[in-house]
């Protein structure tokens, strides 16, 4: 049977050049970058070359890149690291952040830190007006995702940065701005400086890179407390021997996107539009991703079939060889309604009936047509479950 993988936002298949780069390091580079001898130096060169590649793609200086074990660690480092480095922090995060931002924020609140959650509008955008009202003189951190991982909406992070300028003008201190760019990286062109973000989270495995490697951009001059102690690696912000094969693979993935990104982004945009058009006449289907190309990532589409539980649709599509997910993969073993859709004001029923389709470099037009046909078939087949 044909297999169409439309779950790249959960994780993406490793690109051939990534596999080659990982293999190369595993086979040939045995040193620890921290070792004094020549083999250590050889490893350090690989590490620093990879750091340069990532820094260049973020529009950053290499000294501003901290490699981590992935997006989750980078998000934890951004939230906890900021709060712990300050006396009386106030933290604002949007209500539909990835759980690796939300959970640390909730934990801070349990620890007695003042935390606010900024509301989201029904289209899937953080409400900057409401966010502005939450800011205080002692606000230490504002965290807003760049592309929401479930619905693919591109958040007005630059606008949020302006709100923070106002805070500085009024109260003399600018809160740090963190953005989780795990889904955005390489799929939506951006530069950390243009966003005017102080902290940016990225991850390798959504780009065809290896799992288990990510990074946090930390703007020069930003003070953070490390989460992992036990070595002065990564400028003391992340103890532990770096995952060199993974990091080399990460760099290889970024080089691929530098070469192919523009073409792929256009291609995703076209395929997404095609998929929407193919499904347009199906009744009982609601799009959770707005159709506005300027305000969404090109590769993520989210929809609900109210009355039909998302996981039933996922498994029915699987029977046709089409792989999609409910909400985000990290939660999909729990039969919980999507917190993202609830934050967007959807009903509980809509929120348990969402599925996300996400495209990747290997997605073809035939894949999309096949998936649309599978969708049609699945809905027809499962119609008996939907109360009319």
């Amino acid at each position, binding site marked *: 049977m044909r297999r169409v993988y439309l779950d790249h936002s959960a994780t993406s298949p490793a690109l051939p050049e990534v596999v080659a780069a990982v293999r190369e390091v595993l086979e040939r580079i045995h040193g620890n970058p921290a070792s004094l001898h020549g083999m250590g130096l050889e490893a350090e060169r690989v590490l620093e070359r990879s750091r340069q590649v990532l820094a260049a793609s973020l529009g950053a200086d290499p000294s501003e890149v901290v490699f981590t074990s992935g997006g989750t660690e980078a998000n934890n480092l951004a939230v906890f690291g900021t709060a712990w480095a300050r006396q009386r922090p106030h933290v604002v995060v949007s209500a539909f952040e990835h759980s690796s931002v939300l959970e640390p924020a909730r934990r801070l609140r349990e620890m007695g830190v003042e935390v606010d959650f900024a509301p989201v509008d029904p289209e899937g955008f953080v409400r900057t007006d409401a966010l502005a009202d939450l800011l205080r003189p002692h606000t230490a951190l504002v965290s807003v995702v760049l592309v929401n991982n479930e619905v693919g909406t591109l958040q007005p992070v630059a606008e949020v940065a302006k709100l923070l300028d106002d805070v500085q003008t009024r109260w003399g201190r600018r809160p740090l701005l963190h953005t989780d760019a795990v889904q955005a990286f390489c799929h939506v062109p951006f530069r950390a400086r243009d966003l005017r973000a102080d902290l940016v989270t990225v991850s390798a495995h959504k780009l065809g890179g290896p799992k288990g490697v990510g990074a946090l951009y930390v703007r020069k001059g930003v003070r953070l407390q490390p989460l992992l102690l036990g070595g002065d690696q990564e400028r003391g912000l992340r103890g532990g021997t770096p995952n060199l094969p993974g990091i080399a693979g990460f760099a290889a993935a970024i080089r691929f996107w530098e070469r192919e990104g523009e073409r792929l982004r256009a291609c995703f945009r076209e395929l997404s539009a095609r998929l929407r058009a193919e499904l347009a006449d199906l009744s009982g289907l609601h799009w959770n991703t707005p159709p506005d190309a300027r305000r969404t990532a090109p590769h993520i589409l989210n929809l609900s079939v109210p009355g039909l*539980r998302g*996981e*039933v*649709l*996922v*498994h*029915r599509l*699987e*029977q046709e060889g089409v792989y999609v997910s409910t909400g985000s993969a990290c939660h999909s*073993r*729990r*039969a919980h309604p999507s917190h993202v859709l609830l934050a967007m004001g959807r009903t509980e029923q809509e929120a348990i009936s969402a599925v996300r389709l996400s495209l990747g470099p290997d997605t073809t037009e035939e894949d999309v047509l096949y998936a649309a046909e599978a969708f049609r078939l699945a809905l027809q087949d*499962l119609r*008996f*479950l939907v109360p009319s």
Partner: protein
Amino acid sequence: MEPVVLVRYGEIGLKRANRAAFVAQLARNLRDRLPGVRVENRFDHLVLRGAHAPWVLERLQRTFGVVSTSPALEVAPELDAMEAAAQVLVAELAPRPGTTFKVETHRRDKTFPLTSPEVDRELGRRLLARFPELVARMKDPEVHVRVDIRDRAYVYTRVLPGPGGLPVGTGGRAVALLSGGIDSPVAIWMVAKRGVQATPLHFHAPPFTSERSKEKVVRLVEVLSEWCGPMDLWVVPFAHVQRAIRERVPEPLWTVTMRRTMMRVAERVAQRVGASALVTGESLGQVASQTLEALAAIGAATRLLVLRPLVGMDKLEITGLAQRIGTYEVSVLPYEDCCTLFVPRHPRTRPSLQEAEEAEASLDVAALVEEALAGAEVISPAAPAPAGT
């Protein structure tokens, strides 16, 4: 001096007529479950050789029919040899000054020149000479050195309890309905304890249940096979039945109709594997479908005997047993299960057989059962590898 493990069986020793067959089955089960171990059948116990690894003792504690086991040293039936063995065992226990002990001898070989009390005293004296820190005490000693004198002598200090029951395979075969829940694995364990070889049957309903829920059932069978020996898991597609029921049967009777169809499929599987009974994890009154009336209507769908070993247990007892068996932590894994789609909002709690039969009138039950059997898949989960080998 050879390390061996003594295996005692109780209940089956009493069943005079079938005794040889029961013991032979227990020996067979042990050979299957303990690769590399030699099993010798003695008059009233088994002797295992090459069996000192901890995993062997763990498995023996999970083999039905085993009443107790003892890691022992086998020596020539001579005082000096028995003394040497006893010294090794006592030294292993690292006695402190004041550690109490006694020797207890069973002399099955009456040609042995000393009586049991004489052996007790003589070995006790010699041990005291070798370990002056020991103190002899007849009542509740800390170290209990036991000596069995037969054609060979066996010296041991530990008696580990087994699970009791009857060897699996001595009680015939039954098809057991296995969901991913807490109850049905316990039901299988209960009948296996009485010697029944169970063939687990799982109803798989993609896309309403996922590949992961099937995986979970496979894991349950793996855990159960540590007690029951290897089992073939039958996985039968059921989504078409659920769909047909939902479309054609009045909602309050969905559950009873579904269960009746399951019984019919199970009966057919029983014919194929040569089983003479069905086993379910139903108990009385836990949920609406488990009233006497509902159970009667469900049971009426098959002519086979339906065993419901949990019928008199409450949820806490079942959960406690599931924890002891080791299935609990697998059963509670939160993999999604959309069977709730087919749970009626207001089920008929006391359906009569007539109602149940009328509800099925619009279904082609025979065709549904055939379709289920046609899609049957038999999985033989790998026997779990012994830890530390």
